[in-house]
Structures are given as C-alpha cells and as structure tokens.
C-alpha cells in the first residue's frame, strides 16, 4: 500500500496525481474464508481490521449489500465521547475513544479525530445530580470528565444563552478529550487498511441466507454465489433483525428512523460539541463550518431512511432557545438513518443461538463513537469466544433482567 503523507502528495502533484492507486481492492469472492463479516460499515470493517491486527486472522471477507460506509457510518452527527454512567458502557466507549486518538496514524488515513470537547448541559436539578453522579462514576472508570459551572460553559460556548426563560443552564458535564471525527474517513480508512492486509471487501453483494449444519454456521448464500466460512459476524446496523432472521434467530431489536440536519456553513463560532438533553438538541460545528445537529427518533418502526418533520421542528426550537443566533442561520439539508433499538437502548455484542455466528448491533443512536471499540471487542469475541468488553452486552441479558440503562443520567441522545 502506498503510504499517505504530505511528501507523497507533493510527489504526486508533480504528475498531476496520476499515480494514486485504489484505496482498496474490490475482488470477486473466494470459495471460503475463515471469517465473514456481513456489513462493511465502520463497525464491520473495524471488526475485520482488529481480527487481522490483534489476532492475525486475515482470511476474512467483509460483504456489503450496498457501498462500504453507506449506512449509518455516513449518516450520523460524528460525536465521540465516553462519559457514560454504567461500567460496561464506559469501558467500551472509552476503549473506543482512546482508539480514535491514534486512529489516523494506525490507519495512515486522516480521520480528523478532533478532541474539541463534549459538553452535556444540566438544565434541571435532576440533571445536575445525574451528571455529578456520572462524573463520580467516570472518575472511577478512568474516563476523564468533570462538572463545570455556568461561567465556564459560557467561556467554552460563547453563543450559548445561559438564562433561557424556561431552562437556565445550571452547569455541564465536560469531557475535554471527547469530540468528533470525519465519519466517512473512518470507514474508508479501515477499508484501505483491511484491503492492505489481504482481506476482501465485497461490495454490492447481499447475503441472502446463512447456511447452517447441525446448529453451526458453514457459510452464506449471496447475490454473488455461495461462500463458506467458519465464523460469521453480523454487523448490519438498521438491518440486524432482518439478518438475524436469515441466520435463524430473533433479536430483541426494533428499527426506527433517526434524523439529523446541517445548517449552511458559517465561519467557526462554536468549537465544542454541546448536548442539551432536557430540551432534546445537540449541535457541533464541522470543519467545513456547518452546524451539525442531531434530531429525534420516530416512535414507530421504519425502514425508509426518512423521518417526520416535527422532530426537526422540536430540535431546531430547542437549539434556537439554547443558541439564539441559530435563528438567523438556515437549514441546508436534513436526512435520516435507520437505527436499531434494543430493550435497554444499549448494544448487543454477543454469541448467538447459532454456533459460529456473532452479532454486533443495537447501537441505537450512538454507534459512530463506538466504531473502533466495537470492532476491537467484536474481534476479540470472535477470535477468543469472549471479551471483557462484550461480556455484559450479551443478547440474553434481557431474559435475566440485567439491563445496561444509560437513560438514568442522560436523556435521549447517545
């Protein structure tokens, strides 16, 4: 693989960039792989990457029904944080956040991880107590957060209105090494690195059936023919239920549309990510200058990647209330993605009733931030049969009543 660097660009500039090769190859599938990952989104590609990097398993195919990174990887608001309350969540999200710190160098692909800081506003006394508790928990989990006072909030976010008539800002939970990254680049960077390890990324290929013999997986049928494998990882956010059914089991997951929007680009005026859970809005400013805004999820099952406009209205209202100058900006574009919701809104990383089949899904509204950690943990789970990072995220926890509920401290948004 051609290394990327400023020098490489300078060299290529001399010949008008005619020498760049493919970032990843697009081969025809082989007859058999040790591991097949279904879904070439960020999580699937990261799983493949760490199978190779950490466990030397490189006879791997990543099969994608559309284009790599074309699902929720490219539809989210790119927030990365790990200020979670419950231990299992904090563990995997902090692992993930720490992997983002070095991802550009690890992949030799600039994913523009920008640790600009994430702030969660406390606008009720209950929220103050909730975030104080989270700060306490984070301190013991090795996650660096602190509770800050309104004056510091204003210093970090000059455009905020601290004294809204409805919900004054009483403080905030602040994680300074949280931030954002360029979402597409995460998928592209992993794809390039996987391809470089000799893995096959097979796009435009749908898995139509999971072949089993005696309760264990032996391969898949695809629109490009049958492919054998020893292990199968299903990493298909938005379609987890559908794929699980093809593998012969049911998942406690429902799929709903989640929306987001961006404003027209303006000169930088907000350097941090702000989440206001009481009023249901969150916003950051991209390096292009757009205000990136997360909206609400529909309350019904939906596979259309569209959503209802009233959620956008509610979100924008909340933001105009929190950042009054937003009123003078314009919405450029809104879009939707399909997110998988579990019974406790936390993900499932688990073995399944079918031996050799593993599932990674149910990330709800918070999957992007988990991409590298999820891949790391899933790779360990698939290679070794268990991982301390995934133990608590089993699909059977609902039967025991052992939930991982993050709504305790925060509101809607993940």
């Amino acid at each position: 693989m051609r290394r990327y660097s400023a020098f490489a660009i300078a060299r290529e500039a001399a010949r008008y960039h005619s020498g760049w090769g493919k970032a990843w190859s697009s081969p025809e599938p082989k007859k058999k792989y040790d591991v097949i990952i279904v879904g070439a989104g960020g999580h699937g590609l990261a799983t493949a990457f760490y199978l190779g990097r950490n466990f030397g398993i490189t006879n791997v195919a990543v099969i994608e029904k559309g284009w790599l990174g074309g699902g929720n990887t490219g539809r989210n608001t790119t927030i990365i944080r790990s200020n979670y309350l419950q231990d299992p969540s904090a563990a995997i999200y902090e692992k993930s956040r720490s992997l983002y710190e070095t991802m550009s160098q690890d992949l030799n692909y600039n994913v523009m991880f920008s640790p600009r800081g994430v702030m969660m506003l406390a606008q009720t006394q209950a929220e103050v107590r909730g975030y104080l508790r989270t700060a306490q928990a984070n301190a013991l989990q090795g996650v660096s957060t602190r509770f800050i006072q309104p004056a510091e909030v204003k210093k970090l976010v000059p455009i905020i209105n601290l004294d809204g008539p409805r919900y004054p800002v009483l403080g905030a939970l602040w994680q300074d090494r949280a931030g954002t990254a360029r979402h597409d680049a995460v998928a592209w960077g992993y794809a390039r690195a996987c391809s470089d390890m000799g893995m096959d990324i097979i796009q435009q290929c749908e898995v139509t059936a999971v072949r089993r013999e005696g309760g264990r997986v032996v391969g898949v049928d695809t629109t490009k023919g049958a492919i054998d494998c020893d292990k199968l990882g299903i990493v298909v956010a938005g379609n987890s239920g559908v794929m699980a059914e093809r593998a012969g089991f049911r998942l406690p997951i429902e799929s709903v549309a989640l929306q987001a929007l961006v404003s027209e680009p303006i000169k930088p005026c907000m350097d941090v990510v702000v989440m206001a859970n009481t009023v249901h809005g969150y916003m950051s400013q991209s390096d292009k200058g757009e205000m990136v805004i997360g909206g609400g999820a529909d309350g019904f099952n939906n596979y259309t990647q569209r959503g209802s406009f009233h959620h956008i209205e509610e979100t924008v209202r909340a933001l105009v209330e929190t950042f009054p100058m937003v009123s003078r900006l314009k919405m450029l574009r809104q879009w939707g993605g399909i997110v998988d919701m579990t019974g406790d809104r936390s993900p499932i990383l688990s073995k399944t009733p079918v031996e050799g089949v593993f599932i990674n899904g149910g990330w709800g509204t918070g999957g992007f931030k988990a991409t590298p950690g999820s891949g790391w943990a899933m790779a360990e789970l698939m290679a070794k049969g268990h991982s301390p990072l995934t133990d608590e995220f089993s699909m059977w926890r609902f039967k025991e009543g052992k939930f991982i509920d993050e709504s305790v401290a925060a509101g809607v948004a993940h």
Partner: protein
Amino acid sequence: MSTRLATGGRLLDKGRQVSFTFNGKRMTGCAGDTLASALLANDQVMMGRSFKYHRPRGVVASGAEEPNALVGLGTGARFEPNQRATTTELFEGLSAASQNHWPSLDYDIGAVNQAFARFLPAGFYYKMFMFPRVFWKHVYEPFIRQSAGLGKAPDAETRDADTYEHFHAYTDVLVIGGGIAGLQAALAAGRSGARVLVMEQTPHWGGRAPVDGGEVDGKPAEAFIDAAVAELEAMDNVTLRLRCMGAGVYDHGYVLGYERLSDHAPGADGPRHRLWRVRAGQVITATGAIERPLSFAGNDVPGVMLASALRDYVVNWGVSAGDRTVVVTNNDDAYRTALVLLDAGLNVPLILDARAGGGGALADEARARGIRVETGKGIAKVKGRARVTGVAICAQAGEGAVLEEVPCDAVAMSGGWSPVVHLWSHCGGKLNWDDALAMFRPDAGRAPTGHDGAPFVAACGAANGEFGLNAILKDANTAGQTAARATGHKPGRKGAPKASDAGDEAPLEQVWLMPQGANIKLRMKAWLDYQNDVKVSDVQLAAREGYESVEHTKRYTTLGMATDQGKLSNINGLAVLSNVLGQPIPQAGTTTFRPPYTPISMGAIAGEARGALFQPIRRTTVHDWHEAQNAYMEPVGHWRRPYCFPKAGESHEDAVQREVRATRDSLGLLDASTLGKLIVKGPDAGRFMDMMYTNMMSNLAVGKCRYGLMCSENGFLMDDGVVARLSDDTWLCHTTTGGAERVHAHMEEFLQTEWWDWQIFVANVTEQYAQFGVVGPNSRKVLEKLGGVDLSKEALAFMQWTEGTLAGIESRIFRISFSGELSYEVAVPASMGRAFWNKLLEAGKEFGVTPYGTEALHIMRAEKGFIMIGDETDGTVIPQDLGLNWAISKKKEDYIGKRAQARSYMTNPERWKLVGLETVDGSVLPDGAYAVGEGVNANGQRVVQGRVTSTYHSPTLERGIAMGLVLHGPDRMGEVLDFPRLDGSIVQAKIVDHVWFDKDGEKQNV
C-alpha cells in the same frame, strides 16, 4: 463591462431608484431588481470568492440554483449570512457584503491557495496532517477551521429581531411552481372545484415563459399568464402564494412551504417567514428545469454565465453582463440567448456549437442575422482572471489545441437542461435517464406513494422533462385533471390551450467535457462544483482511487455538498464519474435528494415557539405569589416550582435550612398542587388498582389512605404516592409531580389494550384542584382556626381523609405526612386555590408560618427515610432494592411488574440495597458518590460496592445525612465505606438505618 441597458427590464420599475450598499460602497438599482441584477447594473460582476481556492467568482445563474453570488445581508440582529444575491429582492437601504475573503473581495490573501491547487486535490486532507499526532488539534485543525465556513457567523449575542409563524393548510391539490405549467395545472384542477394551493418561490408568476418567448392561443405567453392568474384569483377554491417555495415533500402527503413575507421589506409589520405545513391530497411539482454549465477550463471566471441567465438579466432586468458575449452550447436553446442579446443591441461575436452537425432553425436564424457560428468547436480555455477577457477556441473532438482566440467580456454557456426533480424525489419518487435529452426525468410509474399506497406526487412541464410550450401545457393540463380526479373531483374536458411551437430543434449532444479529450491541465481548471471548488480532475481522481459509488465520490470530493446542494453540478459530476468507470450514467445513479429544496431559516422552523412560548410553563394557582416572593424556582416537569424562598440577603442554602427548622418547630406550607391526581372509578376499579399497584388497594377502606408503589411491566419502580378510597367504587391516586400524564397513560394502556372488558374510567383531575401541605406541630391549630371541619386526632386519624368546608371553602383534607410531622394536605377547587392559600398565610401568622420549597421538602423526607422517585430510583431500581417489601402484597397473584421481578437478576442477592450513610466526620457526602471496593474489574475500572442516592445537610440533626444503595447493605450495619470525592480525597461513611428522624413516628402521631 456589465451595465444597465436603455431598453428591457420587464420586471423593473425604472422610475423608482433604490439605493443600497455592497461592501460599504453605495450603489443604485431599480425597484424590481434582484441584488444580483443591481450589482451587474453597477458593473459589479465579481460577487464572491470560492470556498477552497478563493477564486474570484461572479454570478453564474439568475435564480435559486446560484452557487457563487452569496452575501452577508443586513446588520446586527437582522444579519444573515449566505444569502443568494439572485433571489434577494432589492430594497431601499439594503446592505450586503461579499464573503470568504480577507482583507477584501479584490485583494484576498486566501487566493494564494490557487498557487497550491496542485497540492490540494480532492481528499488531500485524508492523506496528510497526520504527523505528529498532536499537531492535528493544535496546528492543523485550527488552521483548517480558520479557512472553514462561508459567511460570517452572526454575533454570539444576537437575539433575532424578527418573528416567524407556522401555517397549517389542507388542500386537495398542491401545485408547486407558478410557471406556465403550474398555472395550467392549477387551472385544470381548480376548474373541477378541488381546493388548490399554488406556491411560487419568486415574486412573479409565469416562470421562464415570458423570457423564452412563444405564443399561447395566438397571444404572447405573458398575456396567457395574466389571464390564468386572473382566472385563478377569481376562484374561491384556489389560493395563490408568491415568494413561497415548496421546500420539502414528506410521507403521507405532508409538504413544507417556506414563504418569505418580508425579506424584501425588512422591519415590516408581521412575521418575516411563514412555514406552511400542508397536507395535500395530491402534489403537482411544476418546478421547471435548471440549465447545466459546460465543463471547460476557466468556466468559473466571472463573466461566464448560464446562457439562460444572461437572457434573464437582459429581458427581466435590462442588464447586460458584457458588451461582447461568446455563446457556447451543445443544444439549440442557447441560440435564444444570442438572439436576445442581438435584439438588445449587444454584440455576439461567436457561437460555438459543440455539435458537429450544429443547430436547427434557431441556428439558421442566428446565422441569418449575421452571427458567426462554429460547429464542432468548443472553448479550450477562458482568458482572464477576475473577469473574462476572451476565449481560446478548439475543436470539441480534440485535446484542446487552440485554434483561435476571441476577445469577449462574457461567455454564455449551455450544457442542456435538468428537470428540477427534488420535490418529486424527496419522498421516494424514482427517475429514469433520458439519453436523448441527457437528463433524469420522473418515472410516473414509480411515483411517491401515500398512506393508501397510491401515488400522490406528479411532475409536469419542464420538471417532467417536457420542453416545448405545447407539450408543457398539455402535460400540465393532464396533471391538473388527474390530480383533481384523484381527490374525488370531476375535471371538465377542457383541453390545454394551443401554443406556437418553436421551429425544428436539432437534438442535443451530450458534452460532459470540453474539449472531449481535454488534457489534465485543462481538466484541473474545469469546474463542476463552483462553490466547493470541485473540478473534473477531482472526480476522476476519486474514481481512480476506488471511490466509485456516487455517494463515495460526492463525499470524497465534496461535489454537490455546498449550499446549492449541487443543483448545477450533480449531473455533470455524475457523467464524469460514469465516463471514468466506463458505465452508463443511470447505472451510477444519483445521490439522494433531501429537503429542503433551498435552505430555509431556522427561525421559520422554530416558528412562534420561542422565549416564553418555547415550552409554556404550567402554573399552579399560587405561582404568581411564589414569584412575587422572589422564590428561587427550578424546572420540574412542566412547572417551575419554588426551590426555596430566600429572604433578602439570605443564601439558598440558608433559606432551605430555615424553612426546615421553621416547619419542624411550628408550621410550614407547601404548594403541592403539582402532584398528580387521578380518579379511578367503576365496578372493576378495585381489581384494576390491585394490578396497578404492588400493594393491595382493593381492601382499602373508604375514608382511608394508603401509600402505593407503581412499577412498569419490566419491574422497575416508576411512581409512588398516596391512594385514597373515596367511595365504594372510586379511588383517588396521587402521583409524583410531572407523573400524572405518564401514570394516566400507563393506566389507560392496560385498560384499553389488556383488560378492555373491565368497567373503569380513569380521569386526570390534577388541574381541578389546588393542594397544599400544611405541615408542622401547629398544622392542626391553623386548620382548626380556619374552622369548619373537626380535625381532632379522633375524628381524623393518620392516613385518613375527610371532606368539609374549611374557612368557607369546600375542601378535602388528607392526614398524611411526607415529613414525619403532624401534617395535612388540603385539596380545594382550583378556582379557590389562591384564596385558600391567603387564608392559610393569614391564619398562620401567629405561628410564624413559613412557605417552603422543594429542597426543604426533600430534606425532611430524607430525614424521615422516605424515598424519592428520581433520587432513590433511576429506572433501574425495583421496590425490593429499597426495602419496600412491606408495600408489596404477598397475597396477590399478579400486579404489573411482578413477573419481571422474578427474573434471575432481580432476585439476585448481589443487588445493591437501600441504607442510610452517616459520614464519620459529619460532613455532607458528595452527590452521586460511589463507594469503592477492592481492586479493579476486567476492564480496569475501579470496583464499586454502592452509591449515594440522596445527600443533604440536615438542620434537624445538624450533620450530613445520606441514603444510598449498597451491596449487602442492610447486612453490613456499622461498616464504614470509602467514598472518593472528585478531587481524589476520601469521605468515610458508616452504614446505618436510613430513618434518621423520629423512628417511632411520635411527632405525627398526635
């Protein structure tokens, strides 16, 4: 130079001069001008700088598709960035500033990027800025952000000076677009009697037709338009809106309209924007078409414009972009521009027709009028930097060898037309590729479908890929009639009017690069996306690197991601991509069209709901009194409740401590009206109550009260409160503040979907009563003083209620206590709430009556060891965790949550249990602190064994008190736990009983 012409300008009122400023320079235009036309009239061709290379950019279009001419408009609280000059109507005093340059539009430091353009190809940032790692945050990103963004951000403290409103509208047929197609469709539908709403984004009816010419029913198109508008205006069932854009089409016939009421008259009375939320039976998109640029080197130099735009400026606004205009085209339509320019007395030295065979009748006419027409030729390169000075001509078939240079000061280009299919596509309408006309057009067989599964959107006219006047009118007439029929109306048989068809037109030829074999140096100067600076070479590079899907290419190069969302660039970029990949254009497909069609203001989206209307505050009957006392209020549910009532100079902490002491010593008053009150009534109410609550409620005697716990079906404690049995078949359930709606919904859900044969009504009467806590040793005395009801220990025992007339006001009195004191809650009709409160205050004077807030309430309940929903519970706690087994009936077979509580993890003895926590040093435990155990877990996290759920300084005990959930807590009384503070220091606390105050209940038992 560009200038105002002596003739032309059908939209202008030349008698009315309008003065405005651009970058501080005073200029003059006419009423009817757009900012773009007025700038051209003042020879201001350059209007901005591009995003990446800061190239000088002039206006290229005349409407909503404009990518270049973006300005910051207005000042102060009315400033708005990124306004398109082409859709900004000129008004007196308008103040505009160009964007994306420093220090000025003419001298821009950022333009140095052009010199480095070779080092900044598509996606360069993915390949560099990686080393050393820390540089991204501290060096590279700040640098990139410095150059990020387009327009200036409004000031941080901006409070929008304008207002906005929302309209709801219901219509049978919604016509989007008021050109001749839209008008004809509206006529056809309106004549059937169907309700019709027509939206036109510009301030004028008729669209392009008056500019493009042609006759309808033997009269000029303009006459047809006037007649059509007059007929529509006369119909009661038709509503016409100008300056109103169809912004988005959503599921089930929901459409968003965006009406700009006073953008052209800032400060006028009334709202600035109106957001229309329309439910339409049928939607007709008559949104016209947009001309495409041609991709040749230097196609972004100011003075290079769309042929149709040049024509618009001459005909509509009487301005010329230049004296000498070279026309370059791959179709016949651009010849119209050449002829219009001639008519206006301007010079067209040359028409370059890329087609070897040249044009049809219009080309003949151009030749006949003396214009030199070269076929099979194109532009190798545009000369000039900040302004076109000439073009170098080449053979279209070649690689760009220059045959000749022709001086000129404007270039009119046309690469064909793309129907505006955005609104058709928003909700899933599919497209077909029309190879003859080189465009995507709506596939009527795959229209967006509504709630009934039937199509609800139809495109007509140019938006449907129809271009001749006759074809457009016929198509529109059919669309209008079909839509009327689909909404249950009978359209007449009236056909479309007859139009004069243009003469023979020669077919367009697809030209995606000019010349077709352009070398890399030319391709690096051939712009696709003007605003984001994406060139032909960028798309080719992306494809070569494997970013083959149209979405990959878009995201890798940022093609079509600018504020124009690729209206000019998407098809051209797609064609370039397809050519590299050697696949037909339809195989590559388009990117997804997303609302809105053009950006709409956040203010309009938020509408009226801002400030006090953002989330209107629910007010109790004594809310005003609280505010008059300068109570410190906190948001709770939909209310704001007093947290405490500080006296002058008193801190909140001190006020709270005083309130507790005063209540425990004598008499406190609490506005408890926010507590939810639900009536459950009916023959089956008893067994229903037994299902809803964990304890037995059916055997509660009339006249008595019982504390009840309510769980979700998943087992978790969701609400609590005192239940009173009012009569044989009636129970009154108190819920937490803000819990009434949730609990009511919970009850209704089971009532309607599980036990629908049970005979019960549930009514939420929270708003019907004001309720006050009268608390403290003197509570009985003050109520007796009010008089009217026997409240003696014998007449009204603890956990009983009674009714009567207190102080002449009808009251229901509950003898219940959340503080451990002798205490009553008195409910009176809401209308009497304030009166009763006043009487309490008056009568309480002699006892030093002290109103108290939520924090004193919390402290007193904690002193007494009562749990608080939201503190001791957080959605993961079951009653068994809180030692509330006494409130869980063992006799009942079932209640909501019982099965869930039998699951293995719920019965696990390792669950944390409620205890009291007494700090060794008497200090207050930090909120939310955790008790640490030994070592770390498998993920390296500190092992914990408990946490604080409530913590306060108790004025009664004069020390810190806390409750918490602790592993095996109740079995570890007396053990001392370590609670780290956030600063790392440790607070030690002993596990104790969580009832701190009056364990035997003697204070309330009087």
